[in-house]
């Protein structure tokens, strides 16, 4: 599905990715974890072509993405911070994205699911953070792309919406889609992820199932296992 080899990226003097090799298989849910500033978002943005790597190659669906843009039709992306043009209404934004992608999508069911009907005619600048995140989710889930990349999807959501989100993620997996998710909420990761990719200082420190992670760190709880991973590196 995605093949990354020897990916390097520097921002000025700050070396964010230091040689990432990664193979994402079809039909699984991957959680990308790591402390703040470990390069999770940079990795995701490199796959999307928003960040241009200094070195290394990325293939999506067997095609190298360099200079390409059509492959993004196969990716739905949920950005970390829901920044939208503030002068648009929710409806207008959804229609615009539909038009830009040439795809009708199924926004209506999602709007109903997240109970966004009362906000449809409001401007995005007037929405609360959580509501914006729901709109963000609608935009990410409304198309039927093979690959879903969710950057901290649970930020700002109320418990009800969180349950709906988990349901949505499960449903997408059943439909045979591949998901890449970053999150700092370990309980959420534990519930949805098949495999964990742990990034530390720009390198992949661990990749495998949650079970393998707990076995490696000899912990019984994911949160502690992750903390242990960070510590070993920190003291090592």
């Amino acid at each position, binding site marked *: 599905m995605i093949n990354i080899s020897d990916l390097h990226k520097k*921002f000025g003097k700050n070396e964010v990715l230091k040689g990432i090799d990664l193979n994402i298989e079809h039909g699984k849910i991957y959680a990308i974890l790591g402390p703040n500033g470990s390069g999770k978002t940079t990795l995701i943005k490199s796959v999307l072509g*928003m*960040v241009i790597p200094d070195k290394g190659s990325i293939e999506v669906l067997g095609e190298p993405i360099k200079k390409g843009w059509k492959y*993004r039709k196969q990716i739905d*992306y949920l*950005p970390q911070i829901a920044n939208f*043009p503030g002068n648009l209404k929710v409806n207008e934004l959804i229609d615009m994205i539909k*038009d830009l992608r040439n795809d009708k999508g199924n926004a209506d069911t999602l709007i109903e699911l997240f109970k966004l009907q009362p906000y449809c005619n409001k401007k995005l600048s007037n929405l609360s953070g959580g509501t914006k995140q729901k709109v963000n989710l609608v935009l990410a889930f409304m198309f039927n792309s093979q690959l879903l990349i969710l950057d901290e999807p649970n930020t700002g959501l109320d418990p009800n919406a969180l349950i709906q989100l988990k349901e949505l993620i499960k449903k997408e997996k059943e439909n045979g889609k591949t998901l890449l998710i970053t999150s700092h909420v370990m309980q959420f990761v534990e519930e949805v992820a098949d495999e964990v990719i742990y990034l530390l200082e720009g390198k992949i420190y661990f990749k495998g199932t949650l079970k393998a992670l707990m076995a490696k760190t000899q912990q019984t709880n994911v949160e502690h296992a992750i903390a242990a991973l960070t510590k070993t590196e920190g003291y090592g």
Partner: protein
Amino acid sequence: MGKVLKYSFYDLIRSRWSYIYFFFYLALGFVLLFLNNDLSKAVITLMNIIIVLVPLIGTIFGTMYYYNSKEFTELLLAQPIKRSHIFLGQYFGVAGSLSLSLALGLGIPFAAYGLLKSNAIFDFALLLVVGIFLTLIFTALAFNIAIHNENKIKGFGYAVLLWLFMAVIYDGIFLLSLIIFEEYPLDTFSMIATALNPIDLSRTLILLKLDISALLGYTGAVFKKFFGTQIGFWASMLVLVLWNAIPIFLLKYKSSRKDF
């Protein structure tokens, strides 16, 4: 690119500032024509205003739009759209809406005055062409400045400096150099120096078209010899096209290499 352009354009023509800009030209046109009654003088006054104001509005609007549409840009970057189309679409959206305000704002009063039937239509058309060129050029320069500067304040600062340099400082240096080197033949130098600044070039083109090059004194005669001819006119147009094409190309180049 068409779709990005469409949304940028719609976004802008709904904005208050486009209307203010439009009504300003509308009022200016009506006032100058109906209080002045002399078409040629009205065109000269308009020229003096357009040549300073259009570049200023182009640079300010261009940088402002780029920074304000950061969210829109980020949203578009994750969509299956070619990168260069995102930025060129936004650029033409801004430049297009500004040009529309200018063309309609001046066109309506001139049409109402009965210009379409008079000979001055060509002078007026040249004024509009030059105004649109200046809008395209300075918006493109503004986009270049904005894409190279993440910091808004810095970007604005550079944009205003660029305008100040082109509209004021350049002429000062030009005149100073004419005084300092007055003992040398300066015809070629002054012609090249004029052609290199789009604002000066536009001014010269209009003055020559209006047949008042006598106002320019001795150099006027030299200018008339070059810019007044068909070749001179088209060479000037070519320079304006280059002034437009190079920043657009640089914008395309930079946008394909930038991280977001």
